[in-house]
């Protein structure tokens, strides 16, 4: 009788265990970090309050590094400005240049929360819908692509990091213009893989990889990193290991990229897809 009772108890325990594990798997598949942000805005607001409070402390200890990075960026911008000054002084009378409207607008933002040690890393920024942030905007720094806006709260927004195994972007080899897909494999936060590079493409270790501008999320020509190594993928293409310029572990100041033509671009892509 006792034996029968213990078998029954064990069976019930096993059923409850399987049910809870099933429920956990279901919740994980349904409530990824991104969906979670949408569903639990209240909880996230409390979290962001805490993160906001602690970010000042973290920034204090990394001020030196931030200053150096800003200094470098400033020098680069001044040099760029000089080039444009020379350019515009030559063609100032050209009506086409005077009517020139830059395709992208940039909104500076600060990182409130950042992960690099998970397979699905995300970043929280201190800008939200109150600042004109919308979903699918790109996030960049002078050193590369950071990710794209997945969901937006009033004062904060959630970025799917480039260091998310499900995030892919199109990139090109700067020298040859050959394009491929960049994807993180979940291993080293300073390296990504550029795949689908045709076997006949010529490249060298150290060559620079930049954004392609195919997606309308990221501007064309942002330097992402350099080729570290290569390996053949099935004999038909190369998989290149790219050493990123961006150090995600020290990410503080970013730019959110607003492309006013993004919706038009998306509509065209959707039309193209429906034709197929």
């Amino acid at each position, binding site marked *: 009788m006792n034996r029968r009772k213990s078998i029954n108890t064990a069976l019930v*325990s096993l059923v409850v265990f399987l049910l809870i*594990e099933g429920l*956990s*798997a279901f919740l*994980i598949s349904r409530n990824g970090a991104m969906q*979670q942000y949408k569903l639990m805005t209240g909880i996230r607001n409390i979290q962001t309050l805490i993160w906001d409070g602690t970010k000042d402390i973290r920034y204090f200890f990394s001020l030196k590094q931030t200053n150096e990075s800003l200094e470098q960026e400033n020098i680069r911008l001044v040099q760029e400005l000089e080039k444009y000054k020379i350019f515009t002084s030559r063609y100032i009378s050209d009506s086409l240049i005077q009517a020139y409207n830059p395709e992208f607008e940039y909104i500076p933002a600060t990182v409130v929360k950042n992960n*690099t040690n998970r*397979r699905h890393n995300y970043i929280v920024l201190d800008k939200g819908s109150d600042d004109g942030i919308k979903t699918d905007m790109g996030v960049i720094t002078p050193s590369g692509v950071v990710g794209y806006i997945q969901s937006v709260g009033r004062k904060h927004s959630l970025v799917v990091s480039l260091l998310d195994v499900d995030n892919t972007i199109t990139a090109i080899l700067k020298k040859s213009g050959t394009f491929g897909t960049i994807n993180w*494999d979940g291993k080293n936060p300073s390296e990504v893989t550029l795949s689908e590079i045709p076997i006949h493409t010529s490249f060298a270790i150290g060559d620079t990889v930049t954004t392609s501008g195919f997606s309308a999320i990221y501007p064309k020509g942002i330097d992402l990193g350099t080729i570290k190594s290569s390996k053949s993928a099935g004999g038909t293409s190369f998989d290149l290991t790219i050493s990123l310029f961006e150090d995600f572990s020290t990410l503080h100041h970013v730019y959110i990229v607003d492309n006013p033509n993004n919706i038009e671009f998306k509509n065209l892509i959707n039309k193209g897809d429906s034709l197929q």
Partner: protein
Amino acid sequence: MNIDFRKVLYAVALIVIQCILDNFVDLGIYVRIVLIPCIILVLPYRYSTISSMLLAFIIGVCVDIFTTGIIGLNAGALTAVAFVRQKLLHAILDERNMERHDSPDVKVMGMGKAVFYLFSSYLVFFCTYIFLDNFGFRPFGINIIKIVAGTIISSAITLWIFKNHKKA
């Protein structure tokens, strides 16, 4: 009643420490320090597997909400620990020992059995955690390193807590 209140405080403190560790301590992609299984491992013997599992699930959900944001990850892994807890205890301790004492204790178990108890439980935790995170074990090499590193480091820290928990 006083003891129960202290145990609740102890559990809450471990959950808060876990949230701080996950949110603000970055040890790279291979190492994650986990302390919450300790709450389940030191539960009194009278807690049945089912009640332990339900408690583990609730604690796991709390940690998930404030850390990974993926609900079910820690919850599922902690539930697995609760599922094997009684089986492990029955395997390493005799019935008389369990009747005489209220809850697992290093002094009563002996260091060898305590290490086995903690190491096995953490192995179960990390295997389930990695499995749920990847819906499998691929990439195999990295996941093995994560499981082994996490199990060894977390077990060692928990052993220290486990040794001192009776004193608290």
